């Protein structure tokens, strides 16, 4: 556990000493603030659905930018050799990196508390929905990051890692289009896989265990595959 924390600490420090994390944060919060104020001014409804739907899309771009360097960057810089010849296991390494990325987005998420704060100050929004929205958002981010780490573990090139995780996330997001237009088993399969279907219910105030299981499965499967990815690349 101590080694996981060491890896996380190093990554977090790395995030906050590089401009990348600030740029990513500024983009997410800047666009988020724009969406929030525009919806608020135009609709005058104390509702966060629109903002968090849009944030989910922004993160499809933003999350890979942060996760790409976590493993592919180490390999590109040759520091993977240092990590893998240290007395640390691959699961410890992956978990450390994953938790660091999660921590970063937790900070970003906490900063978005401004939105519900403003709503609470101006009117009486449904607090239950705000809670489920944040729960859903957190699970969504956690899944995005796990997929990002997986893509980062499969290549030694940061650009490839970023583009491929962007592709996977976007595909998972647009699966809902398929499910909306096709009936039968293929349609329902697409619906099962589509992130937006699962995420959407949280924004509507619904906590369904299916959705929680869906996100947690993505996280666990992606992290296990990343561990295999790193050991496969190192041990081949």
């Amino acid at each position: 556990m101590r080694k996981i924390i060491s890896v996380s600490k190093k990554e977090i420090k790395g995030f906050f000493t590089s401009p990348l994390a600030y740029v990513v944060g500024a983009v997410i919060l800047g666009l988020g603030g724009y969406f929030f104020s525009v919806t608020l001014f135009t609709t005058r409804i104390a509702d966060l659905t629109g903002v968090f739907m849009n944030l989910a899309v922004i993160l499809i771009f933003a999350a890979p930018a942060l996760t790409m360097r976590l493993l592919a960057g180490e390999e590109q810089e040759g520091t993977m050799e240092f990590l893998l010849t240290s007395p640390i296991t691959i699961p410890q390494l992956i978990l450390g990196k994953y938790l660091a990325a999660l921590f970063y987005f937790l900070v970003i998420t906490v900063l978005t508390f401004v939105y519900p704060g403003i709503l609470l100050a101006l009117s009486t929004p449904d607090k239950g929905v705000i809670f489920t929205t944040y729960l859903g958002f957190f699970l969504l981010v956690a899944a995005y990051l796990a997929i990002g780490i997986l893509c980062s573990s499969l290549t030694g090139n940061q650009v490839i890692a970023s583009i491929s995780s962007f592709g996977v996330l976007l595909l998972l997001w647009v699966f809902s289009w398929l499910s909306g237009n096709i009936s039968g088993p293929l349609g329902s399969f697409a619906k099962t896989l589509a992130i937006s279907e699962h995420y959407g219910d949280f924004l509507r105030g619904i906590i369904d265990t299916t959705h929680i299981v869906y996100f947690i499965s993505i996280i666990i499967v992606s992290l296990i595959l990343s561990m295999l990815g790193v050991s496969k690349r190192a041990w081949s």
Partner: protein
Amino acid sequence: MIELSNVIKKYGNKIAVNRITLFVRNGEILGLLGPNGAGKSTTMRIIAGYLPPTSGLVKVAGYDVVKQPVTAKKYIGYLPENPPLYKDMTVNDYITFAAELKGLKGKDKVNRVNKVMDEVGVTHVKNRLIGHISRGFRQRVGLAQALVGDPQVLILDEPTVGLDPQQIIEIRQLIKNLAGKRTVILSSHILPEVSSLCHRVAIINKGNLIAENTPHRLAESLMGHQEIVLQVKGPKDKVYSVIEGLSGIKNITVNGILEEDLCEYTVQSEIEKDIRESLFYAMAENGFPILEMKSSFMSLEDIFLELVTEEPAIASQKGEKQL
């Protein structure tokens, strides 16, 4: 301390390391020598636990590197060919991180990090970003990273490459000071470095271990003759025939004409016979002054070339010309 038996490493069909069996005793410094692509780095990476051997057994401090990697790695400090550094970390942060990965904590960690930084001489740059320090310092930081866990085994892949002569001397001295307490394997292109630092030399070529012994023994076993290099003033042909007339001479080579009537010769003679005196008198008698005379023992360069080149005769000539 380090034990390799029948280690094979294949990349697809290409054999990078072929049946290497090697023991390194406690406290010994072993030099790995070989041309580029011979399998030195691969061998070191296997010992460090970065690459798995295709077959064979690797043990460090009695632990199987493949089966008990985490335990075995605790005993190893490894400096890869390119020091694995994070350019956006400070020297202090990086070495602390390395110490944490080695399982150090609290006060122990801080003391150890400070001690190692002192040992390799990077204390005064400890708060600078690694990306901003010079190559020599980076090499030291890499070494510090390998040393911070106080490992019993040090694996150094070309530790002095890319350093200036002053830094090379310092790093060598540092490695020498570390020896005794620790077992060291180091690879190098610089042959004098290996002969001055290492107790034992292993020569690898095309993945095969082709020789392994002390530098002195290697020279002895390979050298079937004694060799003297001399510069003599006098007409080439006459000098040549005077040397030829001495007893015990096996071979004479003219290395080059330095000036008019001044040539350099390499004279090979029977191993048990010291011909220096008779050479001196013979030249004095004929009025050919000897401007320089030195006996040339087979250096590691010669041994190396002798062993790794397919045409040994040409190789040894090349080696002599470099002298």
